[in-house]
């Protein structure tokens, strides 16, 4: 029996603009399990990113609860949410969002030093992570604009991991990358998940999605279906086919 690290209870998110309300998430109940590589899929406008940012405490729900390890985070203040994110979450964005005025190493340290005051230990861990993600020393002092998109995204993964988060949230992490760079990023995510790290990833890319072991299909603000791709489905082709038939069932 898996432990739920995150769960929602009647989660709603509504956007208002010029008096027009758009209900993106509608009384959504779901759970994210510890150690899972959970993939959220769905058609454009289904609310995938909205769900991801609500789950991660980046944005507040309009109604409903979000429980993280049994604690409701939906009513926390912005500052408490910031502390929650730094202590528990790592983020990987489609646009990478490294701070372009800082070196690669400083981007990771700026995040790590929020949690630990031990500058030397944080620096050592950052360098270790960069090496693990195949970013050698020559890259560390460069600025984001001076390296490739794939290298930047791997630096983004290092940043997400620097504080040993309980869960990694990835929003279309390969969306802005070419095929080879995308593959490298997915390999890195797969590897960290294999070491027990919980990952929640939003994607609409089939090849990315098959890296997950649990696929959730979101449509019209609700989870319409779920597909397990765990150890029972081995091999890329089998996973691809399993996922393909699930998505076909969902009307993808």
């Amino acid at each position, binding site marked *: 029996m898996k432990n739920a690290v995150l769960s929602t209870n009647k989660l709603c998110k509504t956007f208002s603009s010029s008096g027009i309300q758009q209900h993106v998430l509608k009384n959504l109940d779901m759970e994210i399990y510890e150690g899972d590589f959970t993939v959220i899929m769905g058609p454009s406008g289904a609310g995938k990113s909205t769900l991801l940012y609500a789950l991660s405490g980046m944005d507040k729900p309009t109604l409903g609860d979000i429980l993280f390890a049994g604690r409701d985070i939906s009513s926390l203040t912005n*500052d408490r949410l910031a502390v929650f994110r730094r202590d528990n979450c790592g983020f990987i964005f489609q646009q990478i*969002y490294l701070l372009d005025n800082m070196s690669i190493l400083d981007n990771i340290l700026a995040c790590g030093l*929020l949690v630990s005051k031990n500058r030397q230990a944080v*620096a050592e861990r950052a360098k270790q992570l960069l090496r693990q993600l195949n970013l050698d020393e020559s890259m560390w002092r460069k*600025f984001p604009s001076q390296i490739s998109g794939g290298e930047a995204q791997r630096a983004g993964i290092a940043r997400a991991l620097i504080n040993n988060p309980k869960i990694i949230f990835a929003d279309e992490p390969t969306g802005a990358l070419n095929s080879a760079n995308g593959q490298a990023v997915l390999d890195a995510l797969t590897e960290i998940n294999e070491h027990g790290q919980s990952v929640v990833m939003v994607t609409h890319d089939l090849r990315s999605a098959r890296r997950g072991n649990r696929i959730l299909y979101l449509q019209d603000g609700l989870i319409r279906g779920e597909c397990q791709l765990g150890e029972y489905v081995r091999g890329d082709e089998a996973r691809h086919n399993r996922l393909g038939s699930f998505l076909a069932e969902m009307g993808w």
Partner: protein
Amino acid sequence: MLSAANIRKNKGQSVSLLIFVLIAAMFLNLGLTIFMGIGSFFDERAESVHMAHYTAIYQAGADAIDKGLQYMASYPSLEETETLRAIGGWGDYYVNDTQGTGFLFLSSASSDQKMDAPSLIGESLPLTDNAIYIPYFIMRSGGYRVGDDFKLNLSGTELNFTVAGSTAEIMFGAQFNTIHRFYVSEARFSELEKQFPENGLTLISARFENSETGVLFQADYNKVISTDGLYFDLTYDNAKQARTMIPLIAAIVVTAFALILLAVSLMVIRFRIANSIEESMTNIGTQKAVGYRSAEIVAAIVVQYAGIALSGGLAGIALSQAIIPSITKLLEPLVALVINLGFDAVSVVISLGFVLLAAALISFISARRINKLHPLVALRGGLTAHSFKKNALPLDKGHGPLSLLLALKLLFQNKKQAVAVGIIVAAVTMASVAGIAVNYNMNEGRNSFARSLFGEMPEVNFVLKSGEDGAAFGERLLARPEVRKVLGYEVAATLLVDETGILATVVEDCALLEGNMIIDGRYPRHNNEIALGPSILKVAGKKIGDTVMVKSGRNEKEYLITGIVQFMQSNGFNGIITDGGIREIQPDFIFTSFNAYLTDEADTKTLIDGVRAAEGAIFDSIMDVQDNLKSTMDTISGVFAAVAIGIVAVTALVVILVLYMVIKAAILQRRRELGIQKAVGFTTFQLMNQIALNMTPMILFGVILGAIAGYFGLNPMMTALMSGMGIVRVQLPVPIGQTITVGIALVALAYAVSLLIAWRIRKVSAYAMISE
């Protein structure tokens, strides 16, 4: 259309810039209106009363009067002369219970006076019985009203009157003029003539084709006509200079401050345009792509900022026109006239034109880079503004709190902006320090200021009717327990030094002087020595160690110049000589004026009352010098306190507005970056602190730089302003405590304001900041 859209897009920043320009234009127009208007206003008033250009006050019956009139009549460009009788001498009057001392004379209002006839200001009554018209400056300073009692003490005799009105005085009756004229009825005047047979005066006046001739005439007149029996001779130009000098200095200070503010506004425009080009890079690319020419886009920016400058300039000028009457009211006691400067079209055109042209020019220069932008480069967002040459302060090697390190990193990456903020803050801080220092010297530190500029400041000055009693009186005075020192000190010896007239002060023993009048060399000790003021030395082309011919009447002698003296008297045409020295050319000289210096515990009023009760009949006047100084300084200090408070307040406003614009622009520019930091766990306060700390080092640097510049620049600046008064070396103390307090307050204000402005990011979620 493009300009209007740009203004709409950045409403807050446009309004801040408009406020900047408004304040600069307001001060500029105010300073220029006073600077350009006060002289011509004075001339117009003088012309309206058909003012004399030269007036000499003689003892009635003096031999020189007829010769003087003959000389006047033969002088080229003379228009007319006039002779008037009066009664007067040294005496006291009262302003707000403070005793003022001066040379007071009374004239009959019914005299056939063509030049400078009595011109009444405001409410008045006909002169009957004991009624008197008093100078407007005494009316204003003393808060007198028609019907109030008014007391004069003339040559030791108290005279009581009822105020019937006040007169506009051009040559006499002002704060920095010790000669005051009063008008009484013909009947009262006749009584006074009988009551004071020894106090008869004759005034001879001349009017020339040009007022400037008065000064030339005075020099020529003094060479030819004996000074025997002459109390004073005055020229219109000198009177005008003395009356308008302080308002002119105040106007120069205000104008200089306005120019600093204008420079700040221009820097802000440059900064705004640079930011706006970065922010609107894609829009510029789109405009270029759809066919807008660069010149059209640049013109839109120039029109946008010129429009803001025009609106701010017009509003500032309107505001300055509204406050000019209140400001001139403050200056009235100094000018001693009701000031009505009216609408000065020239000042308005100069102020508005200057502001508008400067704004348009700086906008054009700042927007020119658009010409070089290729549409495709602009569409891609242009070249990044960050300098990636060096990663300043790497976090793995840095020390200190994370927020501070991140703030400093940002500071190094925006060096140009940081330098601009530093310069702006330094400029306004310098102005603030100067304002505080001037205010300090006019208020708390006024004694040291007075000693530096006004010369010797004893506690009491006694003027005797006759010098024959002098020596014995000095001994009696010194025997009083309250008196620690008595010094013969006579101010009114008119001498010719190398044919140029000066006002010499005769001092019994210069070693006993306590003022800081000597600025180079030493005081005279021997009979053949003299110390001279800077202006006479300049005119005579002499220096310390040279000799000068000094003439009084028919006697002349060569004197050695031992030092340079400086104090506000005769615009630097002055000097100090010993009593032995003056007797070489005025053999009959004896002191009639004595300075008394009291012990710390002594009460000046008690001493004066005691001396007056014991031997009141022997005095022409008794002056409480410190009380008199207080009255004078109170008049000036109000003007400078207002200027200082204004400058400090505007400095604080400038700092707030600069920070508002810079931080608001930075938040907009760094919105995504701040969003990322929020997303990865930075709290709102950490980000606010980072933004505030980013500005603080340059504010601190600017404040320190400005304070140092103000500290060391005040005296050279004041010297430049006061050189026309014969002051060539000003050594005013700058109050360190107040300077440090203002510095700390400005830095604290900057930090607090930065936090407050950055507070706006608190409500925006990380998701919103990134996704917008």
